[in-house]
């Protein structure tokens, strides 16, 4: 079952090709508020994958016919910069990016109080600057932080990570060679507080027990990711403490 270009082994001496343990995530770095023009924004580095998210809204809906009298219209556009992949990708949407835009939107929507913003649009734009697998999970991590950064009312943040099966072993956060030549990949997202799952996809071959195991792995990792998202947001707003206290009364 080996594809062209596959390395001999993806797991050597119980370690992955990048030295990680089976249930170890790549290094995660999150910065909130990096795009001044946007209402909210964030940059996420998940190993070698970098995603930038910008949120504009709530704002007027265009085209008008998409306006919903009961809630905000959540618009999510995920694209990959042409230089983000080994082969240069043609700029603009692809079938893959359109599908990912949709599943990312479906991953974020349950967390947002869309009903508080009738007849508006909340536009979420995500650009992948450098791709090394896990792009949709990095996108969701960034978008959730950007939405919170924008002050949009949410019932929870959304955290996301993928896990899969490679050379018979269950691994967390597959990176490129594992994603390309592994047996299965399962991207996942959840609202950390309630543990409700908002994104689940899988391709490859897995048994039910393996899936249960991977879900556990994903959930545990998402708890860590949630902490990192919180820290990034609090860091950005940490300096606001003194101000807001004084003005508490006037709100």
């Amino acid at each position: 079952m080996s594809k062209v270009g596959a390395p001999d082994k993806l797991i050597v001496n119980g370690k992955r090709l990048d030295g990680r343990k089976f249930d170890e995530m790549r290094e995660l770095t999150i910065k909130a508020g990096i795009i001044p023009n946007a209402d909210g924004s964030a940059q996420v580095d998940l190993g070698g994958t970098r995603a930038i998210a910008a949120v504009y809204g709530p704002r007027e809906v265009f085209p008008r016919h998409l306006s919903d009298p009961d809630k905000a219209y959540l618009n999510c556009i995920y694209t990959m910069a042409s230089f983000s992949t080994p082969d240069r990708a043609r700029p603009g949407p692809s079938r893959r990016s359109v599908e990912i835009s949709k599943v990312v939107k479906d991953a974020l929507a349950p967390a947002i109080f869309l009903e508080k913003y009738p007849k508006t649009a909340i536009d979420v734009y995500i650009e992948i600057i450098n791709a090394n697998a896990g792009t949709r999970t990095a996108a969701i991590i960034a978008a959730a932080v950007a939405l919170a950064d924008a002050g949009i009312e949410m019932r929870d943040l959304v955290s996301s990570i993928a896990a899969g099966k490679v050379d018979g072993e269950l691994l967390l956060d597959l990176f490129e060679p594992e994603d390309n030549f592994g047996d299965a990949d399962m991207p996942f997202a959840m609202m950390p507080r309630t543990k409700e799952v908002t994104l689940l996809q899988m391709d490859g071959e897995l048994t039910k027990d393996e899936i249960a195991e991977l879900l556990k792995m994903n959930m545990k990792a998402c708890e860590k990711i949630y902490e990192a998202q919180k820290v990034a947001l609090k860091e950005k707003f940490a300096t606001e403490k003194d101000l807001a206290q004084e003005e508490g009364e006037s709100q």
Partner: protein
Amino acid sequence: MEKLYVNDRDIVVPGEMLADGIEYLPSGKAFRDGEKILASTIGIVSVKGRVVKVIPLAGRYMPKRGDVIIGKVTNIGHSGWTLDVNSPYNADMNIGEATHEYIDLAKTEMSKYFDIGDYVLAEVITISEAKFIKISAKHRPYRRLNGGNIIQVSPTKIPRIIGKQGSMIKMLKDMSGCDVVVGQNGLVWIKGVPEKEVVVANAIKVIEKESHKKGLTDKIKQMLEGGAK
């Protein structure tokens, strides 16, 4: 078991648990989920007795009745004007709410009162369920704002720009000789001589960025005295 999970002045993120127990009451950007009280936006906690309040630190301006705002005319209709008030929703000003004068459309065009691109200081009079916002510039001090410079700041910083009992805005005005009008929707109008307008604008930008820092008032004073950046 009843429990409070946060302290006064803690910064919280959406979904963060603030308290558990039916006796606690959510206020501001806090909501109840079963017996739990949670934050719905990034904000700062204020605990007063049983009331757990979240003061938002970000978010676009959402108009409230009685708010004083500065809007920009974007459209002139048959019976009124539409204004952009820096909110997800536009505002309407009916022809009867424009001024205390009687407007005779046979004699004067509506654009003579407010034209597209004009800035207007107005009050929010009603907001319907469907988020139709009606504003009025009928009574003093509401009016068209002519000339000057309009800048935009985060609405959450407006209280700081006004200052305790208006002390900051008073200093801005007195020391620059400019007229300064603040809209709760984040727009600020500055009118004086251009060299002073720019100093006031920059001072306000500093207040926006460094609102939390100690010694801000002195720094602003220095800027207005015509020295520091």
